[in-house]
């Protein structure tokens, strides 16, 4: 259940930010989770609901953007989509591939409700 401890750290980070901004609650969270990041967005969303209970972020709506993996060939420089770490260059068959995108794991932004008077 590593998604649970990750969900807790997301809640902690966004609640701290929301407080700093004087928010009454957090209504939305935008996450960026690359397809190669090793995180299951669905199970993270599920855990988030539990992790956020009783906090400013309870009921926050989670939106996840999932950038595709992109590899770059270390031999010929070709860039191409990859699903795995063990991709092969479609141009020169090299296995020396550097991952240049798809490993992102970021809290991009939160939407907060400001305190009404």
């Amino acid at each position: 259940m590593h998604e649970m401890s990750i969900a807790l750290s997301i809640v902690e980070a966004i609640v701290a930010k929301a407080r700093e901004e004087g928010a009454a609650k957090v209504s939305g969270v935008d996450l960026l989770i690359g397809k190669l990041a090793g995180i299951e967005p669905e199970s993270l969303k599920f855990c988030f609901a539990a992790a956020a209970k009783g906090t400013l972020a309870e009921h926050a709506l989670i939106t996840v953007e999932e950038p595709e993996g992109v590899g770059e060939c270390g031999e010929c420089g070709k860039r191409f989509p990859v699903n795995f770490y063990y991709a092969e260059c479609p141009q020169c068959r090299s296995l020396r591939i550097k991952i240049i995108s798809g490993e992102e794991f970021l809290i991009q932004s939160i939407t907060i409700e400001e305190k009404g008077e």
Partner: protein
Amino acid sequence: MCDTCGCSGDGGVVLRKPGGSVEHGDEHHEHDHKHHHHHHEGSSRKVVMEQDVLLKNNLFAERNRGYFEARNIFVLNFLSSPGSGKTSLLEKIIPALQQRFPVAVIEGDQQTTNDADRIHALGVPVIQINTGSGCHLDASMVNLAMKELDLQDNSLLCIENVGNLVCPALFDLGEALKVVIISVTEGDDKPLKYPTMFHEADICILNKIDLLPYVEFDVAKCRENAMRVSHNLEWFEVSATTGEGLAVWQEWLEKRVSHS
């Protein structure tokens, strides 16, 4: 961990020393248990964060790393599925390594001090982190544990992570190198099934080679699979039971520690 809400994400982390004291490692857990009943909501707005989700862990890891570097402590993070032989390997090589430099161990398991007790029997400083429901060690747990250990300058610290090939890959502990162990009973396609772990690893140790005659396991294939996922992987083949191959790995390690 948290009596108020019963949350158990890094559920009930406890540090234990064989024959020693127990400490709860939950100081780093913050929580908001207030209930908010705001019936008159104001306007909503977007706040940009662009923050790495693992930021807090990464900051702790860098703190640990700075401490280790300042004191010239070489740190290895051992990762594998349950039962691949992490503790057995440590039991086997530590007595020899101890002749060269001081060694200390941090053991991570969900429950029990069994592994710490096995290391303690070697006369090495050891501390057990019980992660409760948590399935990996994180850098803040290591930070707490290392303060409880009497670490010496110019030494080796081995951290045995919780047996799990998935999420320990995501959590930097501040180690110098990640060592992934697989055993010949696990299938030679393991590196392809758990690419994140192998991609992060610096060293791969194939253990239980004494069992090769009895199982279907293609060593060359496994090595090739591992190399595809991580191009600069150092590869060793050993048996913790018979001791085969251990001298090679030990020699490599001794060189790394004394040159660090």
